[in-house]
């Protein structure tokens, strides 16, 4: 039986689901230096908005358009009311602010749209696909495709569009960007909006798999080790980190779990990340800061 | 200042680069014991990076450091402090949330012999050490005329005063050598004279070896026994101040080529 390759491939594919969440983090961290804990709540908000709309009979495309519009508004509000007043504050303060934000977003999402678990059918039947005797999940395959497409799409956005180039400039050197007339506040709004849209995509995929419900916001906990392995600032890192965490978790639960009584996934990813950090303190794709004194 | 003793410090063929850009290229020079050695040169010449190597903050790509006869491929920050190398920083690296006296006492850290339990319960030894440290810190503060600022949180003080606190912190542990990165920057002329006088006294009375970076060449020429000129990561000149003042390369580096022609 081809247990090992199947476990590995299954894990890799599942890992791309983590990457999807991590990418949203990376965008925001890179451009605005905020470690955005609220990414999970935004993901919940996006998926819940979409499903609430389609449940009301709104066509899917219109629902997506409305959801994106709301995410853009949210991004603008966050930038104006939270980021701007908190400019130059310590990263820890910003992090705590996003924790507060996550409370607010969750409350708004559940308060307005209710807390019932909703089904989300993307029309993907999750039936097994066999390659030889290796079983692969069709859904995971599609999710991996989406993650890849998103990665490519975002890199095109960053490398080919005017906004993208300016955005990378801001990420590299805020002060220089300011001196060249780049409107940093607008860039932040755009980045948060794009991260919201990435959250929507991730929310839809995760929602299709487990129903649209509160626990969607908990997927951030899966994204953290991914980020740490890949580095906070690299989209490629987020994807590779996701693959490593997915494969590592899957292999560990299968081969290590039985010796430890199972259920080791919640901490294993963190232990793995810790090992990676010892080798590379700024993640696989992160850059080491030179200390100037 | 010629002594038969071996040099206090020898920098030997040291090179350093950041992300492929050379900051220091094959640099060698010596600092005699008990001398004031000034490093001068334009911004970006690699002076601060050199001090950081001597303190162990940066690891050189190649070369070695010989301090009091011992050879180091790299220095560890704590090791440097233990061996008596003190340090003042360019952009005030004070502990901004702490009071002046606490900043200075922190400089005595490596002399502390207390255990956590002694500190928690303020056992006699802890009280004794605390009193000793505090007295020592106040002595040094007094030296710099900082007595009245002792309890002030350092972040709220004017820049010039902060520079003095930094100097006090660098010497409180009675190092054998101090590395000072622009100790006079941002001060007015009177303050500069005052600090320069303190530095000279430290050297004369405490027999401190001092390596300092300074842009005010007037003061450097007055204060230093020995000047090393860096430019673009290389050594441009090395010698007593009188010879440096008239060195055409130095004038060129400082005033630009044309000025050199004008001056010549």
């Amino acid at each position, binding site marked *: 039986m081809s247990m090992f390759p199947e*476990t590995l491939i*299954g894990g890799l594919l599942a890992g791309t689901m983590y990457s999807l969440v991590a990418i949203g983090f990376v965008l925001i961290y890179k451009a605005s230096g905020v470690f955005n804990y609220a990414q999970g709540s935004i993901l919940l908000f996006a998926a819940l908005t979409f499903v609430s709309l389609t449940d009301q009979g709104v066509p899917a495309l219109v629902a997506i358009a409305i959801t994106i519009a709301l995410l853009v508004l949210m991004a603008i509000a966050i930038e104006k009311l939270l980021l701007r007043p908190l400019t130059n504050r310590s990263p820890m303060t910003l992090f705590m602010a996003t924790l507060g934000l996550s409370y607010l977003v969750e409350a708004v999402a559940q308060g307005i749209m209710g807390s019932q*678990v*909703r089904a989300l059918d993307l029309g993907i039947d999750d039936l097994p696909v066999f390659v030889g005797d290796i*079983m692969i999940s069709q859904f995971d395959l599609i999710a991996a495709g989406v993650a890849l497409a998103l990665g490519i799409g975002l890199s095109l956005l960053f490398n080919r569009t005017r906004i993208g180039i300016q955005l990378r400039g801001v990420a590299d050197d805020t002060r220089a960007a300011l001196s060249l007339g780049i409107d940093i506040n607008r860039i932040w709004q755009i980045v948060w909006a794009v991260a919201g849209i990435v959250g929507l995509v991730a929310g839809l995929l995760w929602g299709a798999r487990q*129903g649209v419900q509160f626990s969607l916001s908990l997927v951030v906990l899966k994204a953290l080790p991914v980020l740490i392995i890949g580095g906070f600032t690299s989209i490629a890192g987020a994807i590779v980190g996701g693959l490593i965490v997915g494969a590592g978790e899957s292999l560990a*639960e*299968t081969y290590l779990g039985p010796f430890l009584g199972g259920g*080791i996934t919640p901490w294993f990813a963190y232990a793995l990340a810790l090992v990676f950090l010892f080798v590379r303190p700024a993640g696989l794709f992160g850059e080491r800061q030179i200390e100037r004194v | 200042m010629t002594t038969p003793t071996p040099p206090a410090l020898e920098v030997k063929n040291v090179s350093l680069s950041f992300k492929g850009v050379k900051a220091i290229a094959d640099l060698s020079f010596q600092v005699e014991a008990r001398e004031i050695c000034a490093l001068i040169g334009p911004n970006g010449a690699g002076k601060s990076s050199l001090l950081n190597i001597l303190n162990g903050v940066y690891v050189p790509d190649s070369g070695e450091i010989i301090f009091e006869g011992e050879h180091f491929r790299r220095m560890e920050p704590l090791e440097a402090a233990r061996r008596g190398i003190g340090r003042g920083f360019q952009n005030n690296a004070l502990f901004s949330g702490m009071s002046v006296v606490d900043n200075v006492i922190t400089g005595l850290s490596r002399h502390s012999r207390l255990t956590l339990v002694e500190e928690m319960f303020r056992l006699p030894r802890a009280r004794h050490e605390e009193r000793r440290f505090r007295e020592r810190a106040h002595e040094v503060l007094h030296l710099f005329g900082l007595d009245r600022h002792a309890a002030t949180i350092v972040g709220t003080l004017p820049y010039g005063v902060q520079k003095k606190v930094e100097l006090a912190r660098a010497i409180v542990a009675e190092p054998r050598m101090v590395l000072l990165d622009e100790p006079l920057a941002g001060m007015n002329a009177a303050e500069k004279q005052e600090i320069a006088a303190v530095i000279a006294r430290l050297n004369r009375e405490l027999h401190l070896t001092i390596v300092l970076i300074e842009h005010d060449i007037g003061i450097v020429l007055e204060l230093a026994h020995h000047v090393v000129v860096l430019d673009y990561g290389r050594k441009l000149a090395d010698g007593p101040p009188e010879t440096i003042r008239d060195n055409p390369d130095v004038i060129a580096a400082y005033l630009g080529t044309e000025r050199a022609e004008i001056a010549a």
Partner: protein
Amino acid sequence: MKRLLLAVLLAGTVFSTATVTRAADVSQYIPLPTYRVGAYASSGELWWAGERDYFRYINEVEGGVEGVKLNYEEFETEWSPDRTVEVYERVKAGKDGSPLAFFFTHGTPATYALLEKAAADKIPLIDPAGGKTETVDGTVFPYAFPLLFSYYSQASTGINYIASKVGGFEKLKGLKIATVYHDSAYGRASQPAIDVLAKKYGFENIQIPVADPGNEQSPQWRQVREQKPDWVFLRTWGVSTVVAIKTAQRFGFPADHIIGDVWAGSESDVIPAGKAAIGYSALAPYPGGTDFDIHKRLKAEILDKGKSDLRDQKLFGAVNYNVGLVNAALAVEALRTGYKHFGARPLNGEEGRWAFEHLTIDDARLKQIGFEGLLQPIKITPTDHEGGGAARIQSWDGEKWVLKTDWIKADHDLLNPLIKEGAAAYAKEHGITPRTPDTETN
């Protein structure tokens, strides 16, 4: 602004305790720790709707219980045991002149956390189909009531149902039954019972844990595929149930060979799983649906009059709504028993214990109160705080739960020694002398 904030803070904390007592009122105080916020709100919302609708029905249509009105009040806990403990502390002295007759914990972890406090305070903890299994033994745990369906009974009923599907207990021999469980105290609570059952019937017992929250279960179900069990007993909770059902489908394990436990058998566990859940069955001490008499009464008196707590009336009759109804009914019937004995006035904790220990709801009574088929006949005694131990089996057809069986009873003869043993060990450890109930039934 700051001053206002401080004022609010102060006022809030002072007034929340300094409630004025009005002696004239004789309503029975019933605090409800609830979770309308957070990860478990989807089931919570419906529970409270069921409980509140029933209490309101009793108050407004039946004029209270034996004339005593019920004064219920909610406290948000987000299903956190600590916050439930805090609520308990806040309410244990009662309110508006009414003592506390019992305390609904609304969650197994909270029951565990309060077990000893409540015993010391002499306040019955009510946790139907949950709680600590050993507390079925009322001689050691006079103030804990895991009513209706303990975790051991759940395991036993599940196995009994599988036996009926495979054609008898003797056919269990050699079968493989895997339990996929939420890796928590709740998830493991059935393990001792399953061990005993496996020994008795000779099936192979495979235990597969799923770590919280359980939103990725490929390794677990790959293991299921490897081991090829004949049946899976699913003891998950919250999102892990949905993911389990979907992942089972992906790994080719048929849904109609999965038996879900009580807390893996509501609409929110199957609807998000879509087609994958068709054919999935679950133990139902609280069957879903609106085909019960009580629903007709509530519809007429509460829902149609716009008095329901249910936000979305489509969910009327959902499993979790019915959980609320049944729990409320148990409380009401226990109070009724107490009022008949002590007189129609608010009961205190000791009286509440007496009331619950003498609660009997037979078929005739079930018919009267409109719970026939929704609630099993129940008889609590001082030695048996469970009092029922049966469930029906319901199966999901893609739209609704369909009841497949009548009440299937757990194998109490087999389980009781296990419970006694556990209770005795607890008694010894805590220096409790089990009471002899016969002498104190007054």
